[in-house]
């Protein structure tokens, strides 16, 4: 078969399907949101369909700025921790025997079946004063009295990492198991110790993968809005919490839409910046 280009309506049909799905499930809701973000709030009602850019103007408050920066910081930090833990973890899984690998993967998939609510409450229990892990430390004689670790920043970070880690490992698994096992061996014959090999060759060869996984975890965690409320204090609430609050409890749909769109734009810029930085470093083109 040497048809250079598909011709006619029929030949183009396969392309319509993804376009249609993308339209229905992404473009239409997004378009609706953009339109609503310019509407006027009607207190006690829904909204008035008039063009009003004041929602965006109202975003520029110190509170919004502080929450925005905190949200981005929390997601970035959690993603970094996830990649930092997940990468060596996945690397060692891929070096295990096939059976052991399957067991680990099943375990990780099982964690995915838990909802954010269950994970949140489970961690708040585990970190509590009455039933938490500090009781074990007291029992071991490492602590005087049991303390509550929740709510707090540490507890929130813990929860965020917990929900993103399985995804990180699942995404890292294919490229890591495809990595030529001769690469680390070559590094060893060239005089690199196992630790140096890990940092110079394994991380080096997979740097683009690491950037991609970091971005995935970052974007995924930006959407978390239950964990900050369960495990954090009000000052740890993220923008997603504020958006939920505006949309559901204040019934201010236009404001929530404006916040969401602005948040998305900022996140996209950061993702773009990360990809750009990852590519412009020497050797970034290869692999």
């Amino acid at each position, binding site marked *: 078969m040497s048809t250079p280009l598909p011709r006619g309506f029929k030949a183009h049909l396969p392309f319509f399907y993804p376009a249609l799905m993308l339209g229905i499930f992404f473009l239409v809701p997004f378009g609706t949101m953009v339109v609503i973000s310019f509407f006027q709030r009607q207190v006690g009602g829904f909204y008035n369909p008039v063009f009003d850019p004041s929602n965006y103007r109202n975003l520029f408050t110190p509170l919004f700025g502080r929450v925005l920066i905190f949200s981005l910081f929390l997601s970035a930090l959690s993603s970094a921790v996830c990649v930092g833990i997940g990468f060596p973890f996945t690397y060692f899984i891929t070096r295990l025997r096939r059976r052991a690998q399957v067991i680990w993967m099943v375990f990780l998939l099982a964690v995915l079946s838990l909802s954010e609510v269950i994970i949140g409450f489970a961690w708040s229990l585990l970190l509590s004063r009455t039933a938490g892990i500090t009781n074990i430390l007291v029992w071991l004689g490492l602590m005087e009295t049991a303390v509550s670790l929740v709510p707090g920043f540490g507890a929130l970070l813990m929860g965020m990492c917990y929900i993103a880690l399985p995804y990180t490992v699942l995404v890292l698994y294919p490229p890591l198991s495809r990595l*030529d096992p*001769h*690469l680390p*061996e*070559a*590094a*060893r*014959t*060239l*005089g*690199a*110790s*196992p630790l*140096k*090999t890990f940092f*110079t*060759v394994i991380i*080096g*060869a997979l*740097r683009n993968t690491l950037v991609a996984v970091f971005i995935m975890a970052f974007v995924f965690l930006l959407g978390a809005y239950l964990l900050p409320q369960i495990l954090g204090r009000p000052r740890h609430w993220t923008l997603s919490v504020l958006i939920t609050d505006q949309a559901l409890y204040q019934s201010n749909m236009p404001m929530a839409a404006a916040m969401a769109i602005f948040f998305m734009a900022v996140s996209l810029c950061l993702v773009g910046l990360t990809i750009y930085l990852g590519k412009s470093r*020497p*050797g*970034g*083109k*290869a*692999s």
Partner: protein
Amino acid sequence: MSGLLFENISKHFGSVIAVQDVDLHLPHGRFVCFLGPSGCGKTTLLRLVAGLEPPSSGRILLDGEDITHTPAHKRNFGMVFQSLALFPHLTVGENIAYSLKIRGTERTEQARRTAELLELVQLPDMADRHIAQLSGGQRQRVAIARALAVDPRLFLLDEPLSALDAKLREEMQVELRMLQQRLGITTIVVTHDQREAMTMSDLVVVMGPDNRIHQVGPPLAIYRQPADTFVADFIGTSNLLPGTLSGRGEVSVRETRLKIGETPDDLAVGSQVSLSIRPENIIVRPGAIQGPNQLQGKVSFVRDVGSNVEIYLECQGLQLTSRSTPKGRPDLDQGDTATAELPPEACVVLTS
């Protein structure tokens, strides 16, 4: 003892035996080939030398120093892998300078040495290229340059040319051999290609499917005097005729008594043997038997490929293949009656 010494080396992976009872001495400065069919343990043996696997038993000594348990990164051996294992995230220059960088060599010295090595493998001015931009042959050269960067004590190559196409492979064989002669470095190459082994090496180590060493020696000596039927069959092509030792210097094959060159001293008259004779040593003539050491048969096939001619002869249920130059081509066609003369000095008696 100087050189590389294997003492009773064995390697098992669980219940699978990869290398069995290897005792071997490889002197300095030689080009050595580990030759054998796939699964014979030749790569495992090389990995034991490199320190990438520990042996299950036995010792490896280099110039009298026991290196059996020295970790790979402290051995200072250069190795070229079958997949080449070039670092995809580094440029050609960075790949070559990797071992220098690890050792903390000065930056200017790194650059000087890299340029020198690129010159050596005939890739000047390529230092800034990416690995993905190179052809198969160029990658090969980079892998060789990288392995040679720190003047290794041993140069190890695991099927280094298997990814190249036939023509380039032949060129690289000659080049590799010349490079080794220039540097005088002890080199071990793993290959399953007997032609490659014959082209390059001073010393061939033939390993068999039983994961043992069958024969060690210079390539021509192995070709002319194979130690057993496996070696005779694996190195080049050989006619193997079953027979009985009917006297000193005589083997009977299908009732025909054939004179042979030498009879091994440990063979008793009457024992079952195989007679090995290389195709190029068989002289085929049209017509019936006229003299001693001849077998009569029918031509079953003629393969004339221009550069040489092969005549397949069926003699009393035995297959004989003879090879000659186009000039020496006998005037024969399929179905003709012909006689094969087996010169006594070309007949080698093998026991197994």
